[in-house]
């Protein structure tokens, strides 16, 4: 079991507001890891730091054993991280097809435009539409497809099922299960504990900018009520 991403002592914030007070996380290759926490605890901030979108004030990030602390986002992405960001952030001025192709990094047997359309037929129907014309859910599918088209070795989904209809959500969960079986490493942020527990191998619980609890699937099953307390359920 190799560690794909290793985060240690990560501190970060926005201007004068400190948000992260020392995050330690390690993501194992081939596993599905989950980052949980209530609203505003710093999940997205952690992801932004990992992606190089936000400068950390302290701490270390290494990817595949290589120190990537402070690396620019494009370098992180090229190191194999694919992001489905919170709030979708698709390219509104590009068509669906262009959204998928613009940042694609094709590999043999990897994701192609056609394969994305197979997975999300709805997108296939709206191929020529501009990003800004899509419904909320369509945008969400596009954001996932776009990240897959970079053929990442670690796929990060920040609230990726938000706003999707139950049927589609179901499809996405089963697709994630399939991707996992194919060996893709995944980092999930989601509130849907039941669905999560079907595929997740590792759990990190973030509370006020620190990792308050971590454990594997077995730990999670046995300590679920403890975790749910943190989540105020």
């Amino acid at each position, binding site marked *: 079991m190799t560690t794909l991403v290793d985060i240690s002592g990560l501190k970060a914030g926005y201007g004068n507001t400190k948000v992260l007070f020392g995050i330690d996380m390690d993501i194992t290759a081939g596993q599905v890891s989950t980052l949980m926490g209530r609203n505003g605890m710093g999940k997205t901030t952690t992801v932004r730091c990992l992606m190089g*979108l936000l400068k950390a004030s302290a701490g270390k990030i290494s990817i595949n054993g290589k120190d990537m602390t402070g690396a620019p*986002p*494009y370098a992180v*992405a090229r190191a194999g991280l694919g992001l489905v960001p919170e709030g979708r952030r*698709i390219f509104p*001025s*590009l068509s669906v097809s262009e959204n998928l*192709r613009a*940042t694609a990094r094709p590999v043999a047997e990897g994701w192609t435009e056609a394969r994305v359309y197979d997975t999300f037929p709805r997108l296939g129907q709206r191929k020529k539409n501009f990003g800004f014309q899509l419904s909320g859910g369509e945008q969400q599918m596009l954001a996932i497809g776009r990240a897959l088209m970079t053929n990442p070795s670690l796929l990060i989904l920040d609230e990726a099922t938000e706003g999707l209809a139950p049927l589609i959500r179901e499809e996405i969960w089963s697709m994630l299960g399939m991707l996992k079986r194919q060996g893709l490493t995944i980092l999930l942020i989601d509130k849907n504990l039941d669905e999560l527990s079907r595929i997740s191998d590792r759990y990190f619980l973030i509370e006020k900018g620190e990792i308050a609890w971590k454990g594997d699937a077995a730990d999670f099953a046995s300590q679920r009520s403890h975790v749910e307390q943190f989540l105020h359920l």
Partner: protein
Amino acid sequence: MSLTLFLILCLNGLQYGMLLFLIAAGLTLVFGVMGFINLAHGVQYMVGAYLAFAYTALTGNFLLAVVLSLGTALLFGLLLEYFVFRHLYSRSHLDQVLATFGIIIFLNELAKVIFGPTTLTIAPPEFLSGSIQLTDTLRYPVYRFFTIFAGLAVALLLFVTVSYTRIGMLIRAGATTPEMVAALGVNIKRLFMIVFGVGAMLAGFAGVIAAPIFAIEPGMGDNILIVAFVVIIIGGIGSIGGAFVAALLVGLIDTLGRSLATDVLSFVFNPSFANQIGPALASMMIYLLMAAILVFRPKGLLPAKGVA
């Protein structure tokens, strides 16, 4: 008015439009992609003209001077981007206006100090000098044809690049969501730098081309900058196709307006009144056009899609 005159006017309008397009294209890209208001774009046009002057004086060869000028203009744009502009992308438009305004002031003065305040000219190259007989009564200078074709060629190249190539997609994507473009593996800083450099080079190219027709003087970029802004606004910001259509429109309307406004008015009013009002009206023409278009299409004629 004769048909010949009208044809000449149209050709001139076309040629002026092409020149405007060369300037506006860079401006609209830089504005559309980086959201950066670069007032110094006009000064880059001036720099192109002075470079052409200096290199022709140095080498005596127009073509060589063009090539050297283009290279230098590109380099100049890259340097400006590196030292000043990239620090301003995340700042407000007004900060950008102020900083680039400072650059205009500086470069205009510098040009005056180096080359003197007087108007300079360069002759068009030998092989582009004569004129072509179009009809019995109509001759048109080769050099002006050359500018029309140069403009068309650049327009086509840009249009294809922006609409159909991957770098074009990235440019359009970067316009609205630069952070995501970066997060998906594109070196956005370099992309911006390239766009900026190309924009500067296009402006410089326009300056080089204009040098033999018009004259070279400090501040020559200031007025044309405003017209270029009119063009990109009429066309819709960030839209190359829009800039092209608008440049032609502005070129034609301005040229025709200036020559015909007085005549047209004197059909209606008495000649002395027409003479008084006509020229003022002619100067206003492009502004009237812009205002009218914006009133009915507040985002320009062919706005880039999905850009808020």
